[in-house]
């Protein structure tokens, strides 16, 4: 019965080796959560700034949840993709962050990473593009075994999320 309304935007991404990025995002929740309104996943446009370090998406996120429990608090997961000059898309990073648990406006930075693959893959990646991707993209936000992945740090995704919480206090949850 408690409700969360997440209104915000994916502001952009910084720190990636190239521009011309776009970002696929999704919100993952536990079973107790129900989406009342809004899209739970999406994809931004490709931002190709000429002389900026950052790519700006300004992609709106507006999603309204109702929940009957706290487990599986929503988390936003991202896949940053790079579109090269040939129009090919390659993966640039995975990342996820939790939706803040306190009401108000939050500026969130979500660091990203990508699997680095074997040496051979790295070489072929540097020449041909493409790159290793997770076979199982759920791994972005689940699984404690992620530490076994060999990854490279990529840039950050910047989010600005406004959180409206409702009725949590009714159930004795202080946010």
């Amino acid at each position: 019965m408690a409700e969360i309304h997440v209104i915000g935007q994916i502001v952009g991404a910084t720190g990636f080796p190239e521009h011309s990025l776009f970002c696929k995002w999704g919100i993952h929740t536990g079973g107790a959560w129900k989406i009342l309104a809004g899209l739970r996943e999406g994809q931004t446009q490709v931002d190709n700034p000429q002389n900026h370090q950052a790519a700006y998406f300004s992609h709106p996120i507006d999603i309204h949840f109702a929940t009957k429990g706290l487990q599986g608090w929503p988390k936003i997961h991202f896949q940053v993709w790079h579109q090269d000059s040939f129009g090919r898309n390659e993966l640039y990073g995975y990342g996820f962050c939790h939706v803040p648990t306190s009401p108000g406006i939050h500026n969130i930075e979500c660091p990203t990473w990508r699997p680095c693959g074997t040496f051979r893959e790295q070489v072929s990646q540097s020449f041909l593009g493409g790159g290793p991707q997770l076979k199982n993209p759920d791994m972005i936000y689940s699984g404690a075994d992620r530490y076994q992945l060999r990854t490279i740090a990529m840039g950050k995704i910047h989010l600005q999320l406004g959180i409206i919480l409702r009725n949590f206090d009714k159930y004795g949850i202080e946010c």
Partner: protein
Amino acid sequence: MATFKKKKKDRLLTNEEDEDGVSNPIMAGEADSVQEIMPGGGESSAAETVSEDQEAQSLLQTLKKTRKKKKRELDDELISPKDDLARELQSLKKKSKEKVEETFRRESEEEGEGEEEEEVTVPEVADDGTLPMPEEEVAETAKPVEGEEEVSRIKKLRKKKEEVEETPIEPADEVDAATPREATPPPSPPEPETLPEPTPRTTSLRARMRSRLEKAKEEAAQEIREVEKENREERQERLLKGRRDKRGVTRFDTEMDEAELERLVESKQMKLRMKKEQPKKEKPVYMPTTEEAYDFFTRNFEPELVEEPVVEKADTEAEEKKKKEEKKEGEEEEKKEGEEETKEKQEGEEEEKKDGEEETASKKEKKEKPEDEQPLLEPEEDIMFGHVVMCRAEYPDPAEIEKKEMEILYVPSVKLIPNAEKVFDQQQPRFLEEEGFYVGIRPQTSGMNQNKMEHRLLKEAEKGRLSSKKWFGEDGRILALPDPLRGTPSRPPVPEEPEPHLETVFRHATMREYNTRYIDGAIEGGGHYQLDVDINSIIFSHHHLFSREHVLATRLMQLFEQYIIRKKKNMAEYLTEKLKALKNSSLHLRDHIESHRSEHSDADRTNYQKRLTDYKLEIRKTRELRDQEEQADRTLLKNIIHTWKEMKAQRELQKYNNTPLKLQIRKEEVEKKQDLLLWKQEIEDEIEEIKEEYEDEYYRKMHIYSEELEKYNKQQEAKNAARIRQQNKGRRGSKQRRQSTGSGAASDTDQPVSEEQAQLDREILDEEDLPKPEMPEPFEEGELREKITAKAREIRRRPGEPKLHLELTTTGTVTATQQCPRGEQSRREDVSKCKVFVKVLFNNKEVSRTTSKLLSQDFKVNFGQILNLKIVQWPESIKFQIFENSGFSTDLLAELFAGIPEVSVTSQAVQIEDMEFSSDVKIQHNHEGVGSGRPFSFGSKGTDTLILMTTGTLTASVAWGVNDNGVPLVPPIGPGGPYNIFDSMKKMDPVAAIGAAGVMDLQKLAKWFLASRLDPNDPNNADLVYMLRPREGDFGQLLPSDFFRLEQLQEEFDLVPDEEIQNNRRFQLLELRDLEVLDFRNFKMVPPFDRELARDVFVEYDRKKREEQKLKQVEDIESHRAAIARFRQRVREQVMQRFRVLAHQKKLDDVVNEPAVPNVAMIGTSLMRVLERKRPMRPQRKERKKITAQAIKGDEKEVKILVNILRAGDIPIRMALSSRTAGGGGGRPDTERKGKESLVRPFVEVMFQHNTVKTSVADGPNPSFNEELELSFKAPNDDYSPSSLQQVTDIIFLNLYDEMVVNILEDDRERGTSIHQRIEKHWLGSLKIPFSTLYLNGKIDGKFTIDTPPILLGYGHEQTRGELDLIINHDVRTTLSIFMTIEPPLTQPEHVKEKFTSTEHEKLLAHAENWQRNFETKFPQREILTTVIDVNGKSVFVTRYFKPLHPPEEFISKGEQSAELVARYVSLIPFVSDSVIFAGLCDIWSTCAQFLMMLSGDEEEHAVLLANYFLALNKKTWLIIGSAIPEGPTAYVLTEEQDDFWIWNAGTGKHFSVRDSNCPLQVVGCLINSENIWANIQQYEKPAQMSFVLNDSKCWSTLFGRTFPSPGLGSVQPEALYYFSTDKVYVRDLQEKIEQMLKNKIMDWRSRHITRWNRHCTQIIRKLLPILEENLGKPVGPQHLTELEQQFGSYKVSGFPINLPFTELNSIIESVYATGVHAQESREIEFALAVYVHPYPNSILSVWIYVASLIRQR
């Protein structure tokens, strides 16, 4: 000790070099202990001189002090446990030493005493394992006892010195040195000072002491010596053997003469003297520290250097030499040696330091030691000098060292010690663990180490150290804490292999090569898949070039093949054998039964009987089968021979051979007698069998027969009896009657009986006669035998007939071509010319073809080609086309479909299969070839003709290719995402994995699992088995678990139950809004609290839901409509869903509003504008800016519909009826005003969404209003987005009324003073414009014909006025000029320019598109169509929609009228705009069948159907695509009449001449029929101005012309339409239903008044309505109305019929409401309502409603 030793070993090398280096603390400690004994030795010597006793005492004191100090220092230094141990030992030693000293002192004073003490103390010292002293002492003491004291002393000293000097040559030296010294005169000068004279007492004492000591020592060390040392010694001796041998060598190679010796002694003495002086001075004050001691050794003796070096040198030399030798001997020895050396050396050092003062001799010798380090002088010089004595290098005897070591060292054993020994107090070890205590796990130690430790501790314990006992626990083991180590490693090992779910895939950066239509390219394999088509060969079983002989040959071959197969199977033989066996067993059984009859019980007997019958049955069956087989065999044999004969005849006839076939028949002679016997036997058997069977049957039948016969007889008897009785009764009745007069009482008793009897009799007689049973026929053997023999003759080899064996060979010779007649030659030539190839079509596109190969003379073609097809599309079909190429022409022989191979079928594992084909090509040859599909006959007889089609077998296979790595190039199953959906499903759902997705009942599944005996160990079933995991591990009982928990602990932490969230209305509302459910789309302002929600929010929605439910459930009266509605709803939902997705895909324009950047051209135009002439009087129309949906959403803006009503024309005027009634009434104001102008006072009322506005009232039949009316428009849920607006189904009604003022003043007297009037409005006609039309067109402008009712009581048209009271308004139509638009203009939906897939030919499509584009650039206004979208969403060529289709029978026969009838029929099909159904999807053209089925469609469907009907009626018909008012873009039908063209509006059924200026069609874009499309390229587009000469290429441009001829497109329309007559009962029901409902509604509408119904009027009207229908909705003749008129003379009647196609009840109600009939306020008013529903086929219904209001005239 072991560790200690080791250390020393390590240090070995360094120590060798700096021999005098200050020893490390441990060594110092060691040295201490060593020293301790020395003083003992020294003391004894000191004690000898009483004079010096005191001094010695003092010396001792100081020594003790220093020692103590030293010890303290050491104590400080020692920290480690080892040191502790050492310290402990030291302290022990100290104590013992003190004791020793005391005893000495005591001994010196009082003899004899202290012996006991010594006895105690000495062993103690000796027992100390670490102390090497006792042994040494023993060794030392042994000598003095033997010899003189002094000698022993010197010896001892010398030995000491030697030890100190560490010369390993010692043992030899000792002997050598001892002997010369003994020889020399008694000791050197210093001796008298230091060495007191040995008194006999002391000697004796000493001797005693020593002996005692020795004894004690012996006792103490016995153990060790005995147990260990011996072994060790032995070993060491063995090791040292070599050294001893060497010793022999070294001993004598250095010589020592007397002089040298003397010199040595002298120098020594000198040294001693000097030394003695120095320390004596310093001693009392000076306590040398280690440093000082060091200095002492290193610095102080420079002056003496001169003398020393020689010895040193010699020593060192010797040493070196020795070392070298040792090195040669081996490392181990060296080490040992070194070890000993260092030890010895250290001992020596210590002695030097401390004892130097006391014993001068020793000191003197020791002094040499530090000089070792001094630079050496030339040995020659020394020798020359004379003071130098050459000494051999001295070294201790290894054996001795070993011995000593053995004495010193204690090496603990590694053997296991029995527990009993380790338990001190108790007798038995006590094991706590066994008693049940938790003991903990002991740390792991090696048993050897543990044993060693135990040994040591025990050793200590033996020495009486109680403390060491505490090391052992009660169980006899060393005490230990529990193992502190964790059992599991705290840092788990990281597995080498990556986790499967962490695996990454390397994806190349690729653009999507193929869209979703194709096989997804993103999957591994890159979307490249390969089909391998192997085309092997074709064998013709008939070919048109076959000669007659060929035909026969193939037949023969086929037959022979059959023969071979049959022979191989040999069924006949098999069955015969079986028969035999069966007979035997049945016989056996019978015998058995016979013989054991008495023994069997009843059950057994029946059982046997049953078996017997079974056998019989089986025998019969088998016999039948065998007979069949035999027959088949025989006929086959006959056929083969027959064919062969025919062939031979043919060959004879044509005199040449075409085929190499040859049939050889071998005969196998048989014995006739035997055969005959068998033959007869067989027949007899069979007869016997049948007989037996028949007899059984016969008995059975006889039994039945006898029963039936009995019954029959009984009945007959009864009947006879009854008949007789009745006859009697009749007789008796008359008799009675006769008698009754006489004796009435007599018959009284008889009467009731006979009554009953009579009844019974009647019944009996009435009973049907039973059929007379027939006697079963007895068995007739003769006939049967004949039959069987005949059969046998037919199917079996006759007795004596030889068995035939056939063999077909191809050894015959084919006649050479030259020898053949001409016909055959040409045939063969043709054959050799004939080529065959196969095309492979993939998804109906040719992808490959084989090379064309020549047909061989035996009509076989071998291709042997494997064609690889790389595919990117999903395989839908694989087709082979077999082509034949002879000369120039190429003919398609046959098409064959190959199945798409299974995934598992790869080219490696495929079997070539035969596919038979046949061709219907008819070919005839004029040579010997028999042709195909043509009759031919064999030989000259020409009797039996044959028609053979070309047939054959294609041997081919299709399989998935395999790449170089052996990976099959198979696309994943099913088009889906990048993941194989089945795989993932398999993961999730084990049930799906076995192909039974969606199984819900697990219990049943479990049952099935058991029943189907799946192997639980099969890995394929693992998932399933796991799911049905047995609870008790019993696989026989696989049952599903009752639950499956996805999220653990979720429920426990739930804040609220699920239902609460589900039932929360606010949440529901939010969700529905989000889902854009129609009712809640753009719902504004969802309140924050549930309670604030309006209660009825969901009412409407729920109702709809329920209705939907109802639609699914109930088949009510409108069943067909309901089905359609359902169908439509479904299609609509699908389309909506599709477009909802599309609508969410924004384009750049939707997001970015970018004004065009000014360019040069724009600047130019703007400049021009400046120069333009100002024309204020000619304002130019500006395009109104369209407003997007978002902009409207603000509250201040309101969307309005502007209706500008300009004028009306030809409005009917009030006619005679009113004038007459007026005349009757008299004096009313309207009658007074009655003139030509005021015949009618019309006004227009516009109604939309139940809002009405109206114009002011005008006068006359042709009024001009010029009024602008505003109607507000409200979109559903305020959603003004195009997709929502498209679905607005509201209709704008424009109703034309006549306003009439009625005076209702009752009292005439008041007429002068007051006015009491009522305004009545009379409906004259209406115009309906759907909102969608307005919305899609933006504006509607023009003159429209108003729909007027065919009968309008009381009104008529002007020109005919006066002639008749009731006027037929012939062709005069009331018109209305309006302009209508929406303000602000709304954005119109964009036509989804989606490229629809098409199955049309690409060339055609390209041509059409090109043509269309050309046209559109020229005439953008005119609409043109080439392709349309069909129901499946595919582009279809529009001409395919035209095909003559027969209208229902009842319309055809009507001749002239039929066209109009048909038009009416079509117009009655309800009209629903596509945009309403399929929002956004421009136009979907359904075929006529679909249209009739759905019973709804828009213009084009109506038009197409009408056109097709007209085509069937043999009219020249076209479809016009153009635009009309009010529809906008639409479709009409054009027909060619005698000398005119008619334009038909299929929606209304009306037709106009092309010349008619009132025709609603305004623009003609193109004409279409099944042959072609004509685009209008004339100047004008109005039909009236156009030429309809289609041949004129200046006026009409055609799609298919000379450049691109029509490909002759097939039609998509069905062959014929299916009509069914409408159910009359249903129609009647509906009629009543409508009527009832309308009555109720009217009463509802005028709830303020009483509604009276005039039945009489209703009756009359009801009669009228069918006439109207017959008249096709046209006005009827006056004769029908007169009746009505007459009847209601006294009433003022106003009313009109409404006609509309039946769609649903609501629309009917709406229409009636719109006329406003009910809005009559008068009290006296009465109503009449009649409904008539006329059924047309396919439940198309025409509904007529007549509503009239009657007001009684006064």
